[in-house]
């Protein structure tokens, strides 16, 4: 039953919160530095890292033993990548024609 449920320490949650806050300041600050096309890359890498922390720790996905849940998350991301990736392949290559 619920007895073997994993209760994470409050300290871990606060550490993750602090990291998320720092990354928010960093991503806003880096936007003012000219990195050429890498501004977008850095912004998206930081956003993805933040999202991963929220999903894995705050949403407990790292600690779940339920494979069904993990399958749903990965397939949702797969379909999202199909949508964004194939759209980009279409619109990104039109000027080659």
């Amino acid at each position, binding site marked *: 039953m619920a007895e073997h449920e994993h209760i994470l320490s409050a300290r871990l949650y606060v550490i993750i919160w602090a990291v998320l806050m720092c990354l928010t300041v960093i991503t806003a600050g880096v936007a003012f530095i000219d990195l050429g096309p890498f501004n977008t890359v850095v912004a998206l890498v930081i956003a993805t890292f933040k999202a991963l922390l929220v999903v894995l720790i705050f949403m407990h996905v790292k600690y779940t033993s339920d494979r069904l849940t993990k399958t749903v998350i990965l397939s949702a991301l797969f379909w999202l990548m199909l949508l964004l990736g194939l759209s980009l392949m279409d619109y*990104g290559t039109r000027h080659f024609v």
Partner: protein
Amino acid sequence: MSDSLIALEHPTELQHHFADMEQQKNTSTFGMWLFLGTEIMFFGGMFAAYLIYRRWYYNEFALGSRSINIWLGTINTMVLICSSLTVALGVRAAQMGKRKLLVTLLLITMVFGVAFLGIKGVEWYQKYEEHHVPGSSFNASDLVSVGQKYGIHINQAHSQIYFSLYFALTGLHALHMVVGLGIFTVLTYFAWKGKYTPEYHTPIEIGGLYWHFVDIVWIYLFPLLYLIDRKPFH
């Protein structure tokens, strides 16, 4: 006496079609993640539209992005991250059966949620005053003249597409926040009534999943809408 024995064998929260509490909880969590999967695709369609138009009208998107108040956006990101922390700590309080702590954390979360919407409202009002709301009174001549100063040509009709996406995406996100506040009002009421115990607190968990998801959407909206181009002009 016999009543309490039955209660031990079969918790009142356990619905008869589940084998045990764990299976019931896993099923609810699975259902919530399925719903969040549909939400990813729901927002995904708008992100795809954003991606395509941003590639086509990059200058309009960059200048439009510059005109949005970055301070309000950054503060709002922090407000949402704080609310995610209080949700995570709230789920933990529910796991440990601390009723008062749970109610307090749910209430603080809602305060953060309302603060987010308030700040969002201030930001939208600034856009309204600048005539940046798409429609008949839309006027981006201020952005055109900023562009001219630095040799960047922009088309106001394309600027309108950026602001349409800005309002659609932040509006849809704000709508999710309003729904989240409604869910949390109900959760707070039942938590206050003492409905949630270490054995049964699935609604807190899956309500928390929803809140965290809305936070993640914002984590992407912030760089995509506010930080397209903040570099100093050459």
